[in-house]
């Protein structure tokens, strides 16, 4: 539902981007010896956040990664300072789902990261027509909270975050 590529407009039947360009998934993260060593502290890194964001799209069996909406280079985390920044790239500049994608990413991070993190989700500069408005909405805590009160919106977000029907 979420990706800007290939998504149905809510309620409508017109496809915005029926044949999205698909990018190869980066492989599974390889397990290193230090990760298995109980005494070593593994800091939260970009790749870890990126893996958390392998959000699925229930209609297209593709993840946001495969649609190139989220790229690892656009994920920045600082474990020590407890900050996360994610830039996402709607596949077409007029994608009406941009807010929804941003919201899904934000919700996923809120659920998956410790409380101490400050989470910033915004559109990759210059990739969307109403970039500023969307960014503003996503940065506004109260608007995010209010959006999640809306059960139909929450439903769509949850569907995006559900891994079950893949």
């Amino acid at each position, binding site marked *: 539902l979420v990706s800007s590529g290939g998504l149905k407009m809510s309620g409508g039947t017109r496809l915005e981007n029926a044949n999205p360009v698909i990018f190869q998934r980066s492989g599974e993260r390889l397990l290193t010896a230090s990760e298995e060593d109980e005494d070593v502290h593994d800091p*939260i890194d970009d790749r*870890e956040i990126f893996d958390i964001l392998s959000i699925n799209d229930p209609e297209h069996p593709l993840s946001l990664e495969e649609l190139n909406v989220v790229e690892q280079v656009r994920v920045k985390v600082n474990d020590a300072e407890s900050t996360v920044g994610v830039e996402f790239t709607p596949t077409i500049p007029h994608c009406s789902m941009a807010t929804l994608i941003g919201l899904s990413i934000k919700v996923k991070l809120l659920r998956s*990261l410790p409380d101490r993190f400050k989470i910033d989700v915004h559109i990759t500069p210059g990739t969307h027509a109403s970039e500023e408005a969307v960014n503003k909405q996503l940065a506004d805590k109260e608007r995010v909270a209010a959006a999640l009160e809306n059960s139909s919106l*929450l439903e769509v977000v949850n569907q995006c975050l559900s891994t079950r029907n893949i």
Partner: protein
Amino acid sequence: MFPSAFFFLDRRLSLTSSQPHTRARGVQLLSEVLHECYGNLTEREVEVLIAFYENRLKDHYIITPPVLQGLRALTKCTVLPPGSAVSMLRSLFQDVHVQSLMLTERSCVYNMLINLMETREAELKGLGADFVFGFVQSMDGERDPRNLLLAFQIAKNIIHRGYDLGKFTEELFEVTSCYFPIDFTPPANDPHGITKEELIEALRAVLSGTPKFAEFLLPLIIEKLDSDVQSAKLDSLQTLTACLSQYEHKDVAEFLEGLWTSLRREVFQTSSERIESAGLAALTTLTSCLSRSVLNSDSEDSLSTFLDLVLKDCKHHLCEPDLKLVWPSAKLLQAACSASNRASHIITAAVMPSLIDQYSSRTQESVFSAFRESLCSMVFSALSETNSSLQITATSMLTSLAQQTGLLLDSDIELAVDHLTRLLLTEEDDRVSLAVVECAGALAALHPAAFITKLIPRLKTEIVASEQYSHHAVRQRCLSALAAVSTQPSIVRESTPVLLEVLSSAHTGNLVGFSVEEVVLACRSLQRIAEQVQDTEETGQCFHEVIIPRLLSLALQAALQGLSGFLSGCFHVVRLAGQTASRAVSLFLDGDVSFLPDNSFPSHIQLLKQGDSWSQSQMVCLLMGCVCSLPRSVEVPQIDQLLSQLEEMSCTCSHPLSYTSAAKCFAGLVNKRSQGDSLDSLIQRTTKRVCSELDSTSSPVRTQAFTLMIWVAKALLLRYHPLSTALTDKLFSLLGDADLGAMAADGFSLLMSDSADVLNRGCHADVRIMYRQRFFSENSAKLVQGFNAAPQEKKPNYLKALSNIVNKLPKQETVLLLSLLLEALLCPDQGVQLSTLSCLEPVLINPPPALIQQLEALVSRLLALICSSVRIASLRCIHALSRFPEHEILPFRARVLRALARPLDDKKRLVRSEAVQARGEWFLLGSPGGR
């Protein structure tokens, strides 16, 4: 004469009554009388009666039935006056509408016709086409199967006896063919016994009776073949076969294309074997019908026209690469071919060349032959590159090319071997060497010669002859390459001496820098060869006669010189040595060294006696390899002596590898001994000895006794031997033992799991199915009891034992122990917690109702563990819990989500990742769009 005259006079009154019913009764009486006495009538009387009856036909309809009966009786008269048959039929056809009569009267009419056709054929033929027309009108619309049989008989007579059909051919066809194909199911309690087959046969005789029907029948058959009803198809095909045997080529000429299309379809897309064979039979008949034809000078040969069609559709399938329609096409061609000499000439001439072509082209060299040169130069140049992934791809390409039969030339193979050798010796990248070794193995299986002449000598020089410059890693690669290429007996003959040379040189110290590791690797290579080589007599002999004695000898030398590290490598090779067993036994028992090469050993070495050096006693593991992998049918020589020495050694020796191997060897032999008193007394003796050692807490050999006990228990448990109980009970009682308790708990894991080197099916051990389940069902109560009775500090041993057992069981069994598993989660021992969680996780995927009742306890205990050292397993269980029925787990949602916040910040990434997944699922629970 007299009685009938009287009768007339008497009846005149009723026959002339004004009431039709009365008249009818009169006529009926007359008809019944005639039925009885038609044989006595004179020609004159018959004439009068016929005139009377013909007249009556014009009377009231109610009189018609008795009139018809009367007429039928008269048709049987032998004295029927000339012309009367014709006049009777004329009146009948003129005055009576047959199909508005009742069943019996209709049957009466058909019988009249049949009777007259039997006796007055010439007269009826005189009626010309009118007779046919009258009949057609009479039967038009008939529905009763009994009457239809009669009507079909009449129609058949008309056709077969040469009545003039005139312009009513089509009408006669229409009136009969409308029943085709027959669809009739007799009523359940049918008294008339008419079957569908009878009707089909009768109708088929009509339809196929004359070529005059061809122009109507053939289109009908083509149409009916389209039907989805199987019986209709079958009937159509059989009718076609029947009529084609009557027809000439000109009758079928214009329908050939349609018929062929239908027949082809029935065979290509056949749905049943019967239809297919009916179709093929029809094709044969059609072809022979066409073959029979006498050609006019101006007509074309319809046989070759038809066969052209057949060949056009079938021939190309014979050459299709997918082979899908080859078989049906072949069947069609065979069917046509078998029809006549001419047909077989035509078809054979057309098909043979392409079949022969096909054979030679399919067995020919591969499609790549044209590109061989460029492909090879590409591979070889890629192999010479420095990019490792290019090299790896090139090796797999080389493997593929080599597998194309007949593609590569010998010179290509030789070049390939050179490249592979070079890479083996110089390439440092592990992935590349691995790929090279694999490729060499694949190529060697196909082209052994090049490897024998080039690769092996080169590797040998590299391993053996070179000085210390030879690098350790290079030797290692060479050894594994030697093993990989040794798949053919001819290569094995060359490669194994190299490996043996390595082993003996390592010994005598001839080689510089040979490590224990390399010795082990050489042995492993031998083992791999033994496993992968084609099992021929030659290789078997090579192993038994040369390699194994040699290895034993080397091992013994090593033992005598106190060298270690040699044994573990030898062990696996020795296992393969069935035949050598007896010699091994005499070596160990009697010190018979005569079969070993390089015989410089002292003459009476005693390997099984507690000697001075463990390096000798550990040789027993080679004995185990030799004797414990024998099939059960092979007798081990001197077994009693062997067993008692092994028991002695395992109970007294102080070197762990030695006494464990002795115990395993003992157990392996006990498992295979045949049932009986001698086995029972042996077990009882051993059990007694073991128990007495175990009971004396001060005994110095308790561990040894314990080891022997557990292996013997396993040996007996596997074969369902009743005496195993004494030993397993002892094991249960040891769970409370201060020193051996923990070992006993671990012992259950040994009992329940497969052992790699002995007592498994590969070693031909007696392993009964479901022995684990059986053990569990017999002993779970003891375990639970023991647990409940045990003091707190001993409980972990019980739980550990339990989890060891349960780990190896299918999960249905686990369900019985849920409460114990929940209890085990509270146990402070990490090992217990971990194995309990791993037991629990699969159970949670399909939770039993009993578990759902204890959800509160389960959730609390799992949450208590999510920050412990077993947190990953615990988080997985919590994740699995999220799939429980929503209404059951929803009450725990808030609590679980809160608890899972902490592991999100765990220091280990693997923990965080589990927590993220579990928490994500729990968030979705009960939320719109979630679940």
